[in-house]
């Protein structure tokens, strides 16, 4: 057993020596390989993180959102719709929400503004997300001035900053008193942006949604599961677009790697002949080449994946951001919560490390099964 391990160590030592002897080739291959892994892993990590963010975002959201549709457009919901809904079996809570967007020209950023009753905010107080605080350089006690629908300026005092598991939820969020919200945007007391219904039993949601469309024919109930599905397919679609864009470079790499790995030079063929002539078995020559493939592909995988992790979670995927995030969440910037999908990691591993390692072995096998007496000539 110890002799076997020692043998492997000798083979790895020899392989590392061989790679050092062909520094240019090894480094070139490693660099290109690492870049490919980096790009693929970045797209995968980013899309997965975005999907996780979406799940986190919707975890506490109500099961049903009711919007009012007029001429195919979403419009404000009259407050008396809450009475019209009445008491539906299975609905544990129903309330109206006030929310919208505010474009801040000073920093060219869109804020999501929500009226909050839970926070007991006074009319001049606001609670803001980390993104807004970062962009506007605000801290607790500072004032943020917003321009109302009539052009009047209102100053709000920052009462506290939002903390959340996901920055995507809170980054651009601005919470204020409902009265302050109505004053800022000029919304009548009798209107809400939408209504939300909480349902305890998930199996009842569909039925409740059907009843809602009968009770309120101009309403559109949106289910949480539908939103999740939409997010899921949106980011999967964006990931797909990105992967197709990368396909060209992946193919170029496959050709490059196949050529480098499978095309043995005359020098390498001679070396294999010498090794066999001095007493190495075919399997030992192959093991040596196997280690070469493993070392290169594993290093590329680890470096590429680590770089992708840093790229996605520490630089907010600067390279792919415009394609993957979309316009609506570009401002303000936010940091993704690190999250890795084991299956995705394994898939990337098996589709990169294994094929390359096999590509290195096949030509060696072809060469090493020939008689070693070629070195005598």
């Amino acid at each position, binding site marked *: 057993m110890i002799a076997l391990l*020692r043998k492997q160590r000798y083979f790895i030592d020899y392989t590392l020596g061989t790679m050092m002897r062909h520094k240019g080739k090894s480094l070139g291959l490693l660099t290109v390989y690492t870049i490919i892994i980096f790009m693929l892993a970045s797209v995968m990590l980013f899309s997965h993180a975005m999907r996780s963010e979406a799940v986190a975002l919707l975890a506490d959201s109500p099961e049903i959102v009711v919007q009012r549709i007029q001429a195919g457009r979403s419009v404000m919901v009259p407050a008396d719709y809450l009475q019209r809904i009445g008491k539906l079996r299975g609905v544990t809570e129903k309330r109206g929400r006030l929310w919208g967007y505010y474009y801040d020209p000073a920093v060219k950023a869109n804020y999501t503004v929500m009226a909050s009753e839970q926070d007991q905010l006074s009319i001049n107080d606001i609670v803001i997300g980390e993104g807004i605080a970062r962009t506007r350089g605000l801290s607790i006690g500072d004032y943020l001035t917003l321009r109302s629908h009539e052009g009047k300026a209102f100053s709000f005092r920052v009462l506290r900053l939002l903390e959340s598991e996901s920055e995507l939820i809170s980054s651009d969020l601005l919470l204020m008193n409902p009265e302050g919200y109505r004053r800022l945007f000029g919304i009548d007391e009798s209107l809400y942006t939408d209504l939300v219904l909480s349902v305890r039993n998930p199996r009842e949601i569909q039925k409740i949604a059907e009843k809602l469309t009968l009770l309120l024919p101009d309403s559109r109930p949106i289910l949480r599961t539908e939103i999740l599905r939409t997010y899921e397919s949106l980011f999967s679609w964006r990931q797909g677009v990105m992967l197709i864009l990368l396909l060209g470079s992946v193919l170029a790499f496959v050709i490059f790697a196949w050529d480098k790995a499978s095309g043995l030079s005359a020098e390498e063929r001679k070396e294999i002949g010498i090794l066999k002539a001095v007493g*190495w078995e075919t399997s030992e020559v192959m093991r040596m080449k196997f280690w070469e493939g493993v070392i290169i592909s594993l290093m590329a995988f680890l470096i590429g994946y680590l770089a992708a992790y840093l790229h996605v979670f520490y630089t907010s995927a600067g390279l792919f951001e415009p394609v993957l995030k979309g316009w609506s969440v570009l401002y303000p910037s936010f940091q993704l919560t690190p999250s890795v999908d084991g299956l995705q990691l394994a898939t990337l591993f098996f589709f990169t490390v294994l094929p390359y390692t096999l590509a290195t072995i096949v030509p060696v096998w072809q060469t090493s099964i020939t*008689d070693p007496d070629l070195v005598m*000539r």
Partner: protein
Amino acid sequence: MMLIELTDVRKAFNQGKPNEFWAIQGITTQFEVNRITCLKGASGSGKTTLMSMIGCLSRPTSGRIRLQDRTISSLPERFLTQVRRHTFGFIFQRFNLIPGLSVVENIMLPAYPLGLKASCLRSRADRLLEQFLLADKASNPVEWLSGGEAQRVAICRALINDPQILIADEPTANLDSRLSREFMSLLDQLSKAGKTVLISSHDPVVFDSPVVDRVVELEDGLVVSGEG
């Protein structure tokens, strides 16, 4: 005492094709232990082909090769490698050292598959380096060596697994006559130390050397003189 026995050994290249060529056309001979035997002949006479078959680097097309009491000509590749690893040490015409590796790494190469303890392997290599006056060159890349030094490194590599038989194919082809004579005296020492040496050459410094016990002359794949 007989060590290697060849019975009607033949070797064809490109068999069945229009360019079929019989390099060895039926050789029956024996080689004895502790002796230096030289295969002499012009280029294309079949020396290298015969040596490679004896050294288990290739198999005869027909005929039988026996090593001691064992027929090696019909062994499968895996067993052939085992025999080659433990029984033969090779010194090639162009030395065939691996460039980029150091002298000592080249020497230790045949021993890697044995999985010896690193310290044991290194001391074995150091002993050979001392013996062949290469100790100060141990960590030099082989490209820095002169012809004579490269030759001695090749000998050290051939001896690292302590083989019973040394096979040297045209070992003096790249050496001047002084270095060739030096090489022959090294072979003499090895023979006296109990090694059996098979050497192929068309260099008079080799086949006329007093250290050579027997000369077998080949021509067109047949033994023309010195049959055992």
